[in-house]
């Protein structure tokens, strides 16, 4: 099942690595990644596309715990299929 996560995070040096590390460790495959620093460069908008057999809440609940993650929005699975 494909999922798209729209994430707003602090623009720290390791923020993308943190997201990818959690995604890999929790057993999801990365299928897409877009990253755009916000105008003030203090935060970044990240679109993370992932696929995995497990329920997606097992990933989002872990990503939410990352200290740099400010907002996390799960785009519906149907939209995720379209954009994947």
């Amino acid at each position, binding site marked *: 099942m494909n999922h798209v996560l729209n994430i707003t995070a602090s623009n720290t*040096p*390791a923020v993308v*690595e*943190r997201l990818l*590390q959690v995604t890999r*460790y929790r057993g999801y495959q990365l299928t897409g990644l877009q990253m755009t620093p916000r105008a003030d460069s203090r935060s970044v908008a990240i679109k993370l596309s992932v696929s995995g057999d497990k329920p997606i*809440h*097992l990933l989002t*609940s*872990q990503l*939410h*715990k*990352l*200290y740099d993650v400010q907002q996390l929005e799960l785009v519906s699975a149907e939209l995720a299929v379209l954009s994947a």
Partner: protein
Amino acid sequence: MKGAELVLKVLQQHGVDTIFGYPGGAIMPIYDALYQSSVKHYLCRHEQGGAFSAIGYARASGKVGVCMATSGPGATNLITSLADAMLDSVPVVAITGQVSQAVMGSDAFQEIDVLGLSLAVTKHSFMVRSVEELAATLNEAFAIAQSGRPGPVLVDIPKDVQLADIDYQPEASTSVKPAPVATSLANAAKARALIAAAKKPIAYIGGGVHMAGAMGQLQQFLAANPMPSVTTLKAMGSVAKDNAHYLGMLGMHGTQAANLAVQQCDLLICLGARFDDRVTGNLQKFAPLAKVIHVDIDPAEINKVRFADAALLGDMQQILPAISAGTDCADWLSHCAQLKQQYGWRYDHPGERIYAPLMLKQLSERMPDNSIVCCDVGQHQMWVAQHMRFSHPRNHLSSGGLGTMGFGLPAAIGAKLARPQDTVIAVSGDGSFMMNVQELATIKRFRLPVKIVIVDNQRLGMVKQWQQLFFNERYSETNLSDNPDFVALAAAFAIPGHCITRKDEVESALEAMFTWPGPYLLHVCIDDKDNVWPLVPPGAANEEMITETKA
């Protein structure tokens, strides 16, 4: 002042008076500042030991443990201990020196990407880029380590930041306060209804209860809602000793009464625990008849491995009174009491040789009130959990989630420094003890009166037990019969000791150990054939325990 001095100032503002560490090139400015500081530094003999001491200090006291190391190998040596703190939710701040920013990224001497290494083993980590952000970063590190579900935080500080000048004026309230815990009682009514309707409820208690400071609320909850209770390894000591319905530890080496009762219960009230695989055995067959109430501070634990019929997130102190509903389960209580009696421990081991469970029971009965026992990992660790009783989980420090051999001795050092008035006993195995044996030098240097009990079967006993049961008795690399002479080894560090081999020597040996005012090593030789029972074999349900007679 220099950045290095600022580090110590900020630590003092957080009430830190004890640090564990080891110096090296990239952290020399901080060690130079330490030279004239009132913060007491305890030199470990390996950074892993220093960080375990910080964990022992934190777990015994409830405060944040602090450790330091230099760049490169110093920092990599911390990794195992940080992972241990991560899996057991221990608040630790680790400070590492880093090479100067001018040479970072050039494979400089003793340079390693510590921030990268830290990702999997810390709750959060920082690389400080300028001296201006140093104080705020350290404040954040302390706040994160203690807030919500606690954990380790690493702060990597390049040498040029340590050497940079800054005009530092501590703010009136410098510290970032740990974020308040948001508590939702939305499901409290549902939980109360489940408790009121349950015919066979049971409380499954984890480390989250005492870490939330909710020991009092737990006793009140169990008194107002009489029900059997079981604990995880990390929660041993959570249930008051006079609670007649307590059944012991559950899981792979849990008591038969605890495991059978959990398998039979119709409501499992999980308090600050996480359905670890060593607890559940075969997850699909775990507590198959039970509805679940799950109370935790970490949203990611809810529905992670077991669906919760009612989940409550937040502060255990508030939640426990809110879900109290009163129980009416006299038949269930008497059934569980009967299980407890039927499957009670037996200590009538034949022969003259020392039986570790009995020896540990004797140790438990003889040790002063409020003693702290620090374990290593393996058979002795499970025997301690089975046969010793504790009055508080902060009196039983055991590496639970990571199961790290080498934890016990350095953790005991930290525990002794956190609570100098209490007796501290490191119970180790002959395998585990050798993993951080260098910390005997720390005990010697600071004359720490830590009591060390080595349970020696000349084997890597737990691995040997599995080889015996599940690998056709092919004893690959588990024979340690060429162990050093542990008493002579202790003597080399000016620690007196004694070796015993017979049951009838135990009482007098324990008395001698406790009577001696300083550190002491008691070498207890046991039969290599003794195993840990009961045992839930891999893939089995928790009621399918193997016992000694069945094996």
